[in-house]
């Protein structure tokens, strides 16, 4: 599956390269964070707000993984770690997604849902139609 990862590598990189990685990551994260907060404080529709927040979150997570945690798709890195993160993300989607599906399905079949709303409909049946 992977080649053993114990070789020596001549460091061609310098500290500057790594500092740049952190700095870029910081700036991008800042922008994405501000975008998310701005969306909430704006006048957009709720659906659009949620979409922006979620996309910003996903992008920021990716940025953190690449720039701060140095996870990369490049072939030089041991693939085991990338595989690990991707596999974990998949299982997590199944478990979290499955939970949300199951519980919202159950929730939809519970009367508790209706009790929490106001009950204008029942009252109107009993009232005589106004002239």
């Amino acid at each position, binding site marked *: 599956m992977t080649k053993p*990862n*114990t070789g*020596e*590598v*001549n*460091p*061609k*990189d310098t*500290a500057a*390269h*790594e500092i740049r*990685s*952190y700095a*870029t990551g*910081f700036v991008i*994260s*800042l922008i994405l*964070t501000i975008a*998310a*907060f701005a*969306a*909430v*404080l704006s006048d957009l529709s*709720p659906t659009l*707000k*949620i979409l922006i*927040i*979620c996309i*910003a*979150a996903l992008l*920021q*997570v990716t940025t*953190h*993984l*690449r*720039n*701060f*945690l*140095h*996870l*990369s798709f*490049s072939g*030089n*890195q041991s693939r*085991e*770690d*990338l595989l*690990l*993160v991707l596999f*974990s993300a998949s299982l*997590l989607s199944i*478990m*979290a997604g499955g*939970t*949300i599906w199951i*519980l919202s399905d159950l*929730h939809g079949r519970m009367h*508790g849902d209706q009790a*929490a*709303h106001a009950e204008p409909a029942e009252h109107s049946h009993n009232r005589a139609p106004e002239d």
Partner: protein
Amino acid sequence: MSNTDNSLYPGLNLTGVQSEANEKAETNVFGFWVFLMSDLIIFGILFATYAAYLNPVGLAGGPGPQELFDIKSVAIQTGLLLLGGVAYGGVSLGVKYDSAAKKVMLWLAISAILGAGFVFFEVSDFIDQAHKGGIPQASGWLSSYWTLVGLHGLHVSVGILWIIAMITQIKTRGLDDTVKIRLSMLGVFWHFLDLIWVGIFSLVFLVPLS
């Protein structure tokens, strides 16, 4: 963005510059990543639970996101944690490029202080919310909110304790190979917590406020 040489494995790489430590580091850091994945599952399930309790039934007539959330404080916490993450970059670079132990300890301290600032604001928020009736004993949603956010805060606190432990270790046994490997793992932990926070401020705070 090419990270060819400083990314043999995720997290701090001690390649070339510190090759002997690197082999042991690979096993230890990989193991720590694996452990973090199990931690990720814990958080993931708590996130899903939070979503499941975020409805009128789960709120049970108690205070909700609109009443309790202080978006300014959340923004401050986000900033502090992000800066804390970047500050740890100072630690990583110091360890990798053989900086003086003093410099590494300084960056560790800065990270810890920023993290402590984060915890301070978070705890004050919790106290405020409790005064407004937003105690975890009030509803299912509040229980899941306190648990999810509280667990993250607990992790950050443990991270701060770990930083203190590392500073102590550097002082007593010096910046030896084992200590450097542990600093790698702590770095992965620290950044991971910032990552989880991205999920929290987005899904726990911002989405319900939308």
